[in-house]
């Protein structure tokens, strides 16, 4: 229950936590004093013929005490909530930072939905831990002991009963908790399988409809819903049971104490004053213990979320080499060398690259060809330092790539992905991205070079039009041109180009081909090629298969050789 990660988060808020402590003590003192003053009034009126006027001082005292108690309670809640909010915000930022730093390769194992849920419901779920569970722990630690101390000198028998019955509550809670824990885990598993099943029905709805099976599935939905209800109720039944036991113990204890003091009163062993005060304090004594059941439940949910959050936060960062080099900020093209590179993605069984070796002279245009899954995109991932090779070395101008500062290195690359991610930001921001030096003129120049300036001007707010989720939708060709504009703005000597596989209309294809020609002029260029046109013009073609280089050379050379490249292009040559 006391999650060590979450407890660690509180450390910076020690002072506030001490305040929480003090407030709880004040609250306990108020509670006892209120009971005392109430008892004085009732006792006076009942047995000592006190009238309203004589009771006035007690009334005044109560007015003040009750106000103080409400105020203290308010402050108590605010303090706990304050701590909780600060921790939540910190965790949000840390989590985000970590996810971005860890990078896309590592995070690709996680489902987007799960991650997003962590940011929203997951972190919000921690709120209960800090605002309900921890303050409750403090309250349980303060109020019942203080009441016990107050009752002990007046009526030791009742104090003894308090002492004997109070431990029953945590004891039973633990027993039921252990029982419930197992059942809970099993039931939640059922619940999550059911949710997945529901999600699947929705995702497959169109497919089902095409096969005329969607109506039949109403039966399945009914069955699932009923299972869902039963499973939820089963979990809840345990929660109800634990609160049943808690309530039973506390109400029975109160009854036991009431009857006990009643009988001793009858025998004249106890004053009414004392008896009534004990009766007033008894519910206050059990209240925090009773509430701790709900608080425990809240803490359990929160720790489940916390486990997920800290699992992500524990993902190792790729610690870069110390004293990274910043190669000179130059626009002179680089030469690149892959020396016996092997790489395997974590989650996959297949090796992506096995002992890949090739070299690229500065300023040359290289086309990479090969079937899907041959390892073409892995070459780009490696060059962008998004992943590190497990074996071998990549050299840039004879300098090892892993000794170069990645942030700096990436700024020397213009990367045009097949389908860029369009962020939910303005057109301007979508082109600029992380570039800190570019001004408006540079962006417009880049957009013009990518032949998208005219289109941007037709948008409702030109460069300030919002794109991405909920913004202006773009066609495939327009997204491609945004990516090319980004690359122009980067003005880098190395260009990585991933050609689109799906066809655009002929006019757009022509425009894009022209922009790409401008972009790649006098640069070192690596193209993952899907078009015969771009392969023909390349200085060298690398044919990759199963993570290995099978052949390389110019178009003419490779055709003459009659190898793999020859077979791949055979169909097209026949057609054209």
């Amino acid at each position, binding site marked *: 229950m006391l999650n060590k990660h979450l407890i660690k988060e509180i450390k910076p808020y020690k002072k506030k936590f001490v305040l929480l402590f003090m407030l709880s003590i004040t609250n306990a003192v108020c509670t006892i004093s209120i009971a005392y003053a109430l008892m004085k009034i009732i006792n006076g009126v009942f047995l000592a013929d006190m009238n309203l006027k004589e009771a006035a001082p007690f*009334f005044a005292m109560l007015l003040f005490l009750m106000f103080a108690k409400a105020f203290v309670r308010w402050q108590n809640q605010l303090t706990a909530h304050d701590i909780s909010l600060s921790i939540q915000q910190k965790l949000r930022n840390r989590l985000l930072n970590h996810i971005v730093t860890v990078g896309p390769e590592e995070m690709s194992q996680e489902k987007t939905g799960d991650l997003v849920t962590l940011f929203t419901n997951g972190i919000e779920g921690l709120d209960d831990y800090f605002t309900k569970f921890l303050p409750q722990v403090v309250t349980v630690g303060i109020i019942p002991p203080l009441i016990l101390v107050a009752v002990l000198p007046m009526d030791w028998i009742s104090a003894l009963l308090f002492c004997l019955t109070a431990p029953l509550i945590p004891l039973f809670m633990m027993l039921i908790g252990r029982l419930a824990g197992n059942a809970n885990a099993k039931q939640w598993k059922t619940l999550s399988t059911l949710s997945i099943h529901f999600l699947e029905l929705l995702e497959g709805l169109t497919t089902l409809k095409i096969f005329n099976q969607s109506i039949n599935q109403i039966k399945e939905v009914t069955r699932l819903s009923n299972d869902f209800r039963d499973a939820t109720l089963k979990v809840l039944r345990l929660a109800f049971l634990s609160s*049943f036991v808690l309530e039973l113990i506390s109400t029975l204890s109160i*009854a036991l104490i009431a009857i006990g003091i009643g009988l001793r009163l009858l025998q004249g062993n106890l004053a009414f004053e004392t008896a009534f005060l004990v009766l007033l304090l008894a519910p206050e004594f059990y209240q925090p213990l009773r509430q701790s059941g709900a608080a425990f439940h809240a803490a359990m949910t929160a720790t489940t979320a916390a486990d997920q959050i800290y699992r992500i936060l524990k993902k190792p960062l790729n610690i870069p080499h110390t004293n990274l080099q910043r190669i000179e900020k130059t626009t002179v093209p680089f030469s690149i060398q892959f020396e016996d590179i092997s790489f395997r993605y974590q989650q996959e069984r297949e090796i992506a690259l096995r002992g890949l070796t090739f070299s690229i002279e500065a300023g040359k245009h290289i086309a990479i060809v090969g079937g899907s899954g041959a390892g073409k995109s892995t070459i780009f991932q490696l060059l962008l330092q998004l992943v590190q090779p497990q074996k071998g070395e990549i050299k840039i101008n004879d300098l090892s790539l892993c000794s170069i500062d990645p942030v700096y290195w990436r700024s020397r690359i213009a990367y045009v992905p097949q389908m860029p991610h369009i962020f939910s930001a303005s057109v301007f921001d979508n082109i600029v991205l992380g570039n800190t030096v570019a001004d408006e003129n540079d962006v417009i120049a880049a957009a013009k070079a990518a032949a998208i300036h005219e289109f941007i001007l037709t948008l409702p707010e030109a460069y300030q039009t919002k794109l991405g989720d909920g913004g202006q939708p773009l066609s495939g060709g327009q997204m491609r041109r945004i990516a090319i504009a980004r690359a122009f703005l980067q003005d880098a000597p190395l260009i990585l180009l991933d050609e689109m596989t799906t066809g655009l209309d002929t006019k757009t294809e022509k425009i894009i081909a022209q922009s790409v020609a401008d972009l790649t002029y006098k640069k070192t260029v690596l193209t993952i090629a899907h078009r015969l046109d771009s392969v023909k013009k390349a200085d060298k073609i690398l044919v990759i298969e199963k993570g290995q280089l099978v052949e390389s050379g110019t178009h003419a050379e490779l055709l003459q050789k009659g190898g793999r490249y020859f077979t791949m292009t055979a169909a097209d040559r026949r057609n054209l």
Partner: protein
Amino acid sequence: MKTCITLLKLFAPALPTMLLALLAAWLCMLTSIGLMASAAYLIARAALHPMIYELSIAIVAVRFFGISRAVLRYAERYISHDATFRILTNLRIFCYACLEKIAPAKLVGYKSGELFGLLIEEIDVLKDFYLRVLSPPLTAVLTLATISGILFFYSPTAAIWLIMAFIMIGLGLPYLAYHFNRSGSTYLREAKGIYKSECIDIIHGLNDIKVFHYDEKKFAINQRIASQITTQERKVFRTTALADAGADLIANWTLLAILACLIPLVRSNQISGIHLAVFTLAVQSSFEAVLPLPSVWHYCLAGLDAAKNLFKISQLDIALHPTAKTHPNCQGNKALLIDKLDFFYKPDTPVFKNLSFSIVAGEKIAIVGASGSGKSTLFNLLLRLWEQNFGMLYLNNVPYDAMTGETVRQAFRAITQNTYIFQGTIADNFRILYPDCTEAEILTALQKAQLHDFILSLKNGIHTDIGEDGNQLSGGQRQRLAIARALCRPTPILLLDEPTASLDSITAQHIMDTIIKTLDNRTMLLITHDLRGLASMDRIMVLKDGQVIEQGSYHELLRKKGEFSTMLTYQRAL
């Protein structure tokens, strides 16, 4: 308000159970008051040193209340949750039925995650609507009526104090909290929505963020939203907590006021001192019924919001089937006839304008065109997943509007681009679409799709679990499974949308050959952007700007040197 009434109507079937739960809640409250009142009576009575038998009733009462409170509470919770979940089950079935009717045409804006949210999460929110919004106020009213009724008999003024306190805590404070927090919590909901999409944006764009060093700027935006949320949350919570503390204070001070009313009555011997003790504790514990009310508005708003989202879905289907004038059957021997078809997703961007063509039974046709030329949309219209805006489609000379969607779809089998692979085994994937298909049929179909050898290599054969969305299969295997499912039972017309997109060229060729072989004289429509291997098609249609701009056999089109031959020039090489 309308949402509220509709929502209450949904709760109507469970009314008897709900009333039972309410009764239990009320009795539970009374026993808890009874416990304290009888204990006070016992002690006050004992202080006067009566004979022990005079106390026996009080002792029994204390014991009785001590036990029955916990029992009643358990009963109340069990009954109310059971009833609530029954209602939620019905609601879920109702929602699925609505979705089924309108999918996919009217669900374009929704992601499956959102729909899932509707079916599971929003309905879950509604759970609180009875448990936290409807039940507590009613319990409070009943408790108030009981206690103030008894109190009124002794001191009307004291009863009025109690009623006023309940009104202030139960209505006044919730209203004030609602009033001050309304704008804040609306703002919060919106801000949280924005924050969520910001997070999705970042997670989806991780690659580009890293490559273009966009992280610092993106963090700044994200942090700004997060801190706005925190500030607003702090504000809302201040008010909420203040309302809670205020409720506490009102309850306590009212107790004092009632005491002040009762003391003179004791002095004038209208009531006894025992009454005073009993009433003090009874009133004090009766406030337990009203103290949760200040936070009701929060659950109420959340519930109404969820209900609104649900009802929005159920109202979507109204516009789906426009009452078109009935078209007469047409003449001739056409398997499919498309007549002057107009269609748009958004009025200002038409997909088809005046599209007309016909297909003779048994023809094998390829449809080509740039992405965005409406090829996949055509299939959606043929399968009647969408309704055209103008014009008519005919199946075997019968107009579509003379048939139901189900009847139309009986003539087709289709592999669409986003064909879904269900979780479970390979056999499950067939059985969900063909509830009565045999193992032999499955194996034949798998053979046609070149998946047979792979399946035989598996230990459990067709009973192998292929994971969520078929993620235990490679992309090519998933695609072949989809093909196999479509080929399992013959239908007059086969629609194929890029069936071999993720397959290597040799397998692709094999599969296309098998499909054509198994077709015999049935009709086939093939959407593709792979222009090779189309020579075997009877006809190729080139779609552009919502029209058929060229059609003819492969060689006719090449000779024509029109759009098709230009496309071939730009066709991918490898």
